[in-house]
């Protein structure tokens, strides 16, 4: 088989990537958004900063595409069958063996190509977070999950309470996963949840007796902002 034909996969790959890059950064974003849209598990994580990162990947995609086209022309002219050279399948191998080696090699090639894309995006993400304190980075990253509580006021409380005294969350109805996030975020300060049919300050003495270590109470009965209050002396 002529090398121009056996290397056709490289030509197709180069055309596809170059075509994608020719759409410009906006086109890349549209493709990325489409992928996120088709994958329900990714939908909540496509954020504004991802969009910036996808835009910044344009040079990587363009370089890969143009590089593939150049490699196709160069290798074919020198009569090099790129795949056989890359994978090292001996010509004496059976058809089945060649096929099996190509299957594994394709997966490895895919994985290698994914690395610069992922690397590029993660480096850009880190770049945006550079200079922030560990706590601010955490706050920024925690904010990405749409079903989580607003960590701003929680962080404010943590600073104000200096991590001392347990927090009692009084809730009406069912416990929520917000309580878990809250407890994990405040730890080692302890957060305890108490479910009550009614949220009334009248129950405070009873709660104090139940949790002598609690210095703060959060009335989580409505949709109000997280604002624990100090439990006064008994």
């Amino acid at each position, binding site marked *: 088989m002529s090398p121009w034909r056996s290397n056709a996969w490289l030509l197709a790959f180069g055309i596809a990537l170059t075509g994608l890059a020719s759409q410009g950064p906006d086109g890349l974003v549209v493709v990325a958004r489409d992928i996120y849209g*088709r*994958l*329900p*598990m*990714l939908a909540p*994580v496509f954020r504004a900063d991802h969009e910036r990162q996808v835009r910044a990947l344009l040079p990587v995609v363009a370089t890969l595409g143009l590089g593939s086209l150049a490699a196709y022309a160069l290798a074919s002219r020198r009569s090099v069958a790129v795949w056989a*050279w*890359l*994978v*090292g399948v001996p010509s004496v*191998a059976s058809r*089945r*063996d060649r*096929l*099996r*080696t190509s*299957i*594994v*090699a*394709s*997966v*490895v*090639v*895919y*994985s*290698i190509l*994914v*690395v610069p894309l*992922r*690397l590029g995006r*993660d480096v850009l*993400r*880190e770049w945006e977070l550079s200079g922030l304190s*560990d706590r601010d*980075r*955490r706050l920024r*990253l*925690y904010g*990405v*999950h749409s079903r989580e509580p607003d960590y701003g006021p929680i962080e404010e409380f943590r600073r104000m309470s200096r991590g001392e005294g347990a927090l009692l969350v009084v809730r009406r109805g069912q*416990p929520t*996963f917000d*309580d*878990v*996030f*809250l*407890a*994990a975020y405040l*730890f*080692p300060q*302890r*957060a*305890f*949840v*108490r479910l009550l049919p009614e949220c009334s300050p009248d129950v405070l003495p009873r709660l104090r007796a139940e*949790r002598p270590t609690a210095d703060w109470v959060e009335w989580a009965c409505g949709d109000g902002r997280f604002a624990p209050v100090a439990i006064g002396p008994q």
Partner: protein
Amino acid sequence: MKQTWTPLERAGLGAAALVALLMAWTIVRVPVVSVDGRTLWGFHARLIHDTGRYPSPELGDPGFPIPHRQYPPLLPLLDAAALAALPVDTALRLVPWLSYLAVALLLSFELPRRDPERGRLLALAYALMPTLVLSEEGGADAGVADTLLGAWVLGAALLLDAGRPALAGVVAAAGALTKNEGLALGPLLLASAFVRCGDERRRFGPILRATLAFAALVLPWLWLRAAIPSGLDEGYLSRLTLEQLAAGAPRGPEVALQMVRVGFLHPQRAGLFWWLAVLLWWTSSRRAFALLDGRLAIVPAYVAILFVLYIVSPWPGVAHVQLSFERLLLHVAPLALLGLTARPAQPIMRI
């Protein structure tokens, strides 16, 4: 025996080294942001580290909102030890990351022995599973507890191949003490000793020795666990009833379809790994041998168990499949590679 390294193998090795470096960098730089890391094993580890005991009093306190109170203790204990040595968030992800590296290294030695032609590439296919190391959250997912269970499963399979059933039982028990799924995978793996355990074939002796070792470690944990109240978890054992199965049956086809989609069409964590596994098995001239002597049959059996659990899952629709299936498949990924390279004439590794 193939000796020279092909350009692709050299490039793959370079990429794997780069990925390992990037993982190390993200482990140091990025706090634990994955939900499971923060609220499950990470939270449990912090509790053990803070209280200095397991189970801590908070686990028995219904007011303390910690999910999966009955979470197996091994990873949290190892993480608590890491936190004691290095009291920063970084420590939490070191244990799973090291287990991932250990599996990658073990495979890179073992697979080329079993399959000289493709062994290196197969080991690279595992080492380069992309999202495992470079996730949406900057590598935080490199610390998933599933990696550790995958390592125990691989270790137990290699020990069975080496004719060490009792040790294999101990390692399989470590898997059960790492994640609940290990309670299903352990017995499946140990039962395979009937087919192959070192030089012994078709005998019950190895199964008995392996099971005794497994039970000696797992039963005390189950007894201890029974005293910890459940809460904020799926409670699968209590849901495995005929009523629940009948109620969940109508969503069976949708669950099965979603499992195929997550495994093959939308792989975010394992890349094209499962395409590789299926195609390589299909094109093998020793399909039946790989399934039985290679223990590859454990993979579909495990997937079938997961299917049943998804059917009775309290999560709505197929949300649980979307969130967890690909991650759970990591438990059997190294085992699948062993199965795909199983050969009757190959000398087995002696440990």
